[in-house]
């Protein structure tokens, strides 16, 4: 009872002090001589309402990109992670190839890869190879983020104590069965938070493909900006990205905290 009351009091104090600080900040910024200029260039009400529908429309391209990419990345990243944890000497080439792949795509700047694959490959005019910018944007994002995600999977698999695999093998499960029924189910639970983190990165990086001429939200905002010499459409784009990424960030934090709690509570 008293605990609840003091918690409520705490919330009240927090709300009031935040309001006071925010008001003071708003007044001091608003009363500064250059504020009208800033407001006109970045936060113009008219440009805001006219550009919002356009930018939201273009954001559909970003959503298509990251949803398709995520669907492809989940299995591809897992396959790469499994290829990297192969121990059999006969399959060593597969492991080496997977290692080179992850090193390369994690080590080269994304924008460079998008540029080279998006402009370079279609320029070869290979028969049967699509040349649409959207296709190459998707391919590049999948290649880059599968490399990141495979490392997340691998860390998850390696975090499962070897006694688990040994216990499964002792029961007569094959190495594959031990992986499939014992190691992976436990590993996948642990990788959800870092996986979502990578997906937040991917969602932001969909803006990079604007360099290929794909008219997604950022490109659309740039077009509107140039037409009116006003930055407000870019602020609108930022806002739309935040609407997607902030809830996801909070979800990741919550899941990670829950994970820590169960790991402390459980026996292993």
């Amino acid at each position, binding site marked *: 009872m008293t605990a609840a009351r003091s918690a409520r009091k705490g919330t009240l104090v927090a709300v009031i002090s935040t309001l006071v600080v925010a008001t003071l900040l708003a007044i001091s910024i608003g009363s500064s001589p250059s504020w009208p200029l800033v407001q006109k260039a970045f936060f113009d009400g008219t440009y805001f309402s006219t550009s919002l529908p356009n930018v939201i429309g273009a954001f559909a391209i970003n959503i298509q990109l990251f949803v398709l990419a995520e669907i492809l990345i989940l299995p591809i990243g897992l396959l790469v992670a499994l290829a990297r944890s192969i121990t059999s000497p006969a399959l060593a080439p597969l492991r080496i190839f997977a290692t080179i792949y992850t090193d390369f795509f994690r080590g080269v700047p994304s924008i460079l890869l998008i540029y080279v694959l998006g402009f370079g490959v279609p320029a070869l005019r290979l028969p049967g190879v699509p040349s649409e910018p959207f296709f190459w944007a998707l391919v590049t994002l999948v290649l880059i983020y599968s490399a990141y995600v495979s490392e997340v999977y691998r860390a998850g698999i390696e975090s499962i104590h070897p006694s688990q695999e040994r216990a499964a*093998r002792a*029961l*007569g499960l094959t190495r594959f069965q031990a992986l499939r029924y014992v190691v992976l189910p436990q590993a996948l639970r642990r990788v959800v938070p870092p996986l979502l983190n990578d997906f937040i990165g991917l969602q932001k990086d969909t803006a990079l493909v604007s360099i290929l001429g794909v008219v997604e939200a950022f490109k659309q905002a740039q077009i509107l900006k140039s037409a009116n010499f006003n930055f407000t459409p870019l602020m609108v784009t930022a806002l739309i990205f935040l609407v997607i990424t902030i809830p996801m960030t909070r979800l990741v934090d919550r899941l990670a905290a829950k994970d820590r709690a169960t790991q402390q509570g459980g026996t292993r």
Partner: protein
Amino acid sequence: MARKATKRVAAAPVLELHGVSKRYGRALVLDKIDLSLAEHEVVCLIGASGSGKSTLLRCADLLEPIDGGSITLDGRTVSADDRDADATRRQLGIVFQGFSLFPHLTALENVALAPRVALGLTAAAAEKRARALLKQLGLAAKANAYPDSLSGGQQQRVAIARALATEPKVLLLDEITSALDPVLVADVLEALRALAKGGMTMLIATHEMAFAADVADRICYLEGGRIVEAGSPEKIFGAPRDPRTRAFLKRVRSVGASALR
């Protein structure tokens, strides 16, 4: 299946080790071990820490390759490097000192996993078998509990049920009570006694001398990777012949088994 609890007839050997040696790096951990388990026989391995008991069990379960000698199961030579080593492991059950239950599965799922996946039983048949085993080990009420909500003794009994679920010919047990509170030890030992009465062939590494004396048909004393002396519990505990066995038992009796762990 149920056999008399009294002396068992000398039956055909099920599991045999012939001159088995094992090295870790330069250290010779098992030195030409000869050991034969007859059907329904219970053999206890005793010996100080580091004498090679766990290594012997892991090698016998084909979890570790051996560096010399051979192992036969029902007269057939088996090896960890065989293509069908997984199939052989299904005929051998092993329970480790740590619980290593699968934490993402319930007690029932832990036990049913190997019958379903490794033996290819239907889900219903595997579950039926798992329920029967849990009941046999006094855990019927805990079927849907996850390992972290079970006591150490209960977890260890689930591990025994899991090892029995592939209907192994031999059950290998590695100091399965050493991580438990004394109160919980009794339950687990009782479960093993019941299995021995039921005719299960078992090879048990243990520090519980009283239990070994009670349940074993034969005791093997290990030192430095060799079986120094083997014989009936009466012989080993009553009139050990080898001076090393005598010294070990004297130490056990003076300091109590716990100090040897």
